[in-house]
């Protein structure tokens, strides 16, 4: 359980990181919180030639509300969301979800953006980003580009971040007045990877759902936003029957992966349960 040998560099700013990535290319690997990468290196499942440690890049440690988005820098730790980072429904949602991420010490070290770049299918933040339609800011030596969540996640541990790229910032849409959220996750133990989880956000006006976001995570190779089911919710008053129908549709549309903790059949039933519970909580 010792990593293979690697070269270690520690750039001090975003521009230095991007330069280091350009220099080392496929050999380089960004180290942020290290909560997944270091374990993978110790198991020798990952053997990067050059570790680019971004922990001294103070210009990446920020949470910046601006207009209708919240911008999250690449060095923002999970723990920054323990209390709502912004007023309003988005801040409440993030503070609700963060409690399900691993354990307290891990949340002091791991980063929001690192979770997205790692793209574990059971990552809570990936589910948040996919469901809310986050926008990713990807930087490299040639400048920066943005990428919508729908195009960002490509599969297990696979994203639109290229060999010379840094996922520099993630922008989450501020949910305005009237939005409320629900999140439900089932895992074997507190802090374990989700066997299934669902995030729901509903905009309620005069007792009617006028906008909706709905997603499921932990059941396939990436978080799934259920856009069609979002549309089924819109224009209707929240009700147990509606949520049951939508949860059943969510289940019908996904064939879950299996692992030693859950068969596909079991996880399929979990989808219905967690979607129903997330919707119910959002409407409560």
């Amino acid at each position, binding site marked *: *359980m*010792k990593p293979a*040998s690697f070269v270690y560099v520690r750039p001090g700013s975003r521009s230095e990181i991007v330069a280091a990535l350009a220099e080392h290319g496929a050999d380089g690997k960004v180290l942020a919180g290290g909560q997944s990468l270091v374990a993978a290196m110790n*198991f020798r499942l990952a053997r990067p030639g050059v570790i680019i440690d971004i922990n001294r890049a103070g210009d990446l440690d920020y949470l910046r509300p601006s207009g209708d988005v919240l911008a999250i820098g690449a060095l923002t730790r999970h723990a920054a969301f323990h209390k709502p980072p912004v007023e309003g429904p988005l801040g409440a949602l993030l503070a609700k979800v963060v409690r399900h991420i691993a354990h307290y010490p891990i949340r002091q070290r791991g980063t929001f953006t690192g979770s997205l770049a790692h793209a574990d299918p059971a990552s809570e933040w990936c589910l948040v980003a996919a469901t809310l339609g986050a926008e990713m800011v990807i930087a490299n030596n040639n400048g920066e580009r943005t990428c919508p969540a729908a195009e960002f996640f490509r599969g297990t541990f696979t994203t639109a971040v290229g060999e010379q790229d840094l996922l520099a910032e993630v922008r989450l849409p501020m949910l305005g007045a009237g939005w409320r959220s629900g999140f439900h996750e089932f895992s*074997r*133990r507190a802090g374990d990877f989700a066997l299934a989880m669902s995030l729901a956000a509903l905009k309620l006006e005069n007792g009617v759902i006028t906008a909706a976001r709905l997603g499921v995570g932990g059941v396939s190779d990436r978080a799934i936003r259920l856009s069609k089911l979002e549309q089924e919710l819109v224009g209707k008053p929240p009700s147990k029957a509606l949520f049951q129908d939508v949860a059943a549709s969510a289940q019908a549309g996904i064939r879950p992966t299996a692992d030693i*903790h859950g068969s596909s059949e*079991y996880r399929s039933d979990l989808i219905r*349960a967690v979607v129903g519970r997330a919707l119910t909580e959002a409407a409560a």
Partner: protein
Amino acid sequence: MSAIGRSLKRLEDRPLLTGAGRFAADNRADGQIHMRVVRSPIAFGRIVGIETEDAAALAGVVAVWTAADIADLPPIDFRMTRIAGLEPYRQHVLARDYVRYVGDPVAVVFAEDPYTAEDAAELVFCDIEEEEPCLDATAEPVPFMPERHPGLLSEPATIVKSYGDIDAAFAGAAHVLELELKVGRHTGVPLEARGALAVHDRETGMLTMYGAAKVPHYNRDSIARMLGLPQDKVRLSEGHVGGGFGIRGELYPEDVLVCAAAYRLGVPVKWVEDRREHLMAANHSRDQVHRLRAAVDPNGFVRGLTDTFFTDQGGYVRTHGGTVSDLAAALLPGPYLIPAYRVEGHIRLTNKTPSGTYRAPGRYETTFVRERLMDAVAARLGLDAVEVRRVNLIPEDRMPFDRGIEALGTHVLYDSGKYHDLLERTLKHLDYAALRSELENRRAAGEAVGLGLAFFVEKSGLGPHDLVRMAVLPDDTIEIVTGAASVGQGVETVMAQVCSDVIGMPIERIRVVHGQTDRIPIGFGAFASRVTVMTGSAVKIASEALRDKACALAAPLLQADIDDLVLEAGRVVSRSSGAGIGLAEIASQSAEALDAEGLFRADHMNYPYGIHVAQVRVDTELCGVKVERYLVAYDIGRMINPMLVEGQIVGAAAQGIGGALLEEFVYDEAGQPLATSFADYLMPTAHEMPPVEVLVREDAPSPQNPLGVKGAGEGGITAAGAAIAAAVDDALGRPGLVTRLPIVPTRLHASLYPR
């Protein structure tokens, strides 16, 4: 005030809390090199060749060994329960001709640092011709190593025990019940993984292994024998040990390898196991399938019981020999009369990690099985589950109760017990009727909540004997030297309390030396909940001898009659004159040393007993089980330190709950282990643990030792699987639903919602 029965703070804790603990990995020696084991990636196959050239050529590599390099080393022998026919199934320290599980050591690399050792280990290539692995212990036996041992099959032995007239029991039975039950593969997972440092001193010829645990004297003898060294040229030394649970400290291939390498390479050799290795190389346990038939009368009394079971022993038979199966076979009847019984236990090898004992070996499994039967009897006959137990429990007036069979070569004689009394006390503690109606109300409101109760009999204090020596030192402290071992359970404190009770010296002035083979010629270590019973009794005997000797030596010094002298608070005092003299002063003024020896022998084990009660809530949609409340009632005979007893019970209950709901070594169809890290091998954490209520009774002291004590180490785990299974059935209103441990969500889902 007696020092026994008090919750004194542990002597062990000062070094541990001040960072002065020294665990296996803390040992280091000048010039040490590091060992890395190359393990088989294949579950079963013939070794065609092992290429080591690239590894050996790496800078910093000192040596690379395969079986051919240590061909003179015999296989690791049995420490316990040697059964005829097991010998060919022993494990060599490096695989010869065949690999038999993923993790089987095939080569070792020695290098100047652990990183290089791991780099080099990756360069060793094993050419293995894969064969079909056997992963089901209930399947027909298959060849063990077809070419090396033609005709030898994967069933090394069958254990048969019986008493009573089984045919008559079934002939007149009102009901016959048949059950098939399975306990999954899990094990003790100490916080500290294994590790060792071996140093060979060329001047003295002494080979020392640091990092010993559990059974240092036995392992010294084995290592000396395997390496062909005189016993007095091998020394094992135990430091702090971060948990044992039966699995840590047995003699494993790695222990022998570090010693052989230090001796042959002439430099100190260090090995520290990583967690991934630990989960596939250290002993697994449990993994039994039982097929029961019970003959039951109309009152729910079990007239006769037969059981055919299969123990999945893994790739080889290790040091425990047939221990787990023997204990399972002998102790399955537990607290019940069951007048006729016949059991056939099949020890079967598969291509998984070898198995050994783990806290309550054979009892965790058979308590699950037997208590599931009692619940099934209640369900079939429409009786209350508690009433069925009342009908079957051995009454107090039958004690001592002769079971009429043997366990571990000792006659099974339940020394004392008030089973019905403990049951009634437990029900009263719970306010059982009120609790049941509270749960019924919650069920009526839609919650799936339930209660499960399970009775068990433990065993403790395995002989044959134990020796301690003690002496008064010049600084007026007492040193107790014992061959017992500390695995973190509080040996020093408990032995000091027993001594203090006789001598009157505070425990802080009593120093307990353990696990050092050069300090005492014999020692049996720490297993089978034996230390408090065996070593404690020897300490009591030695303390009394020391007291008598102190008085005898003080008599001329005080010019007093020996009958006038008493030992009070560590001083010998004349009752008539009030004159007194301290122990160190007696020692300094006497020609004879102020020391003593205590030897305690026991032919029989003793039998503590208890009850586990679990209250659970099942989320029927998510199929998760939450343990809301947990009670362990336990009659221990007599407590030395109540705080330590409670700690033993609560810790064991956590492991029991883990085995009931979470922990499972899963293999795929190719024999690849899928739970090789803590992300997949799920231990219960503080989040999953309910507060554990402990009801300790001292109503049935053991008549077999001078302290009246029985062991505390295992009773907290024994009935956990049984109680939780019953509680889940109850919560779901589905008697007999749980037939397999652990009760994991995906299987609970499959049984609740069959497709």
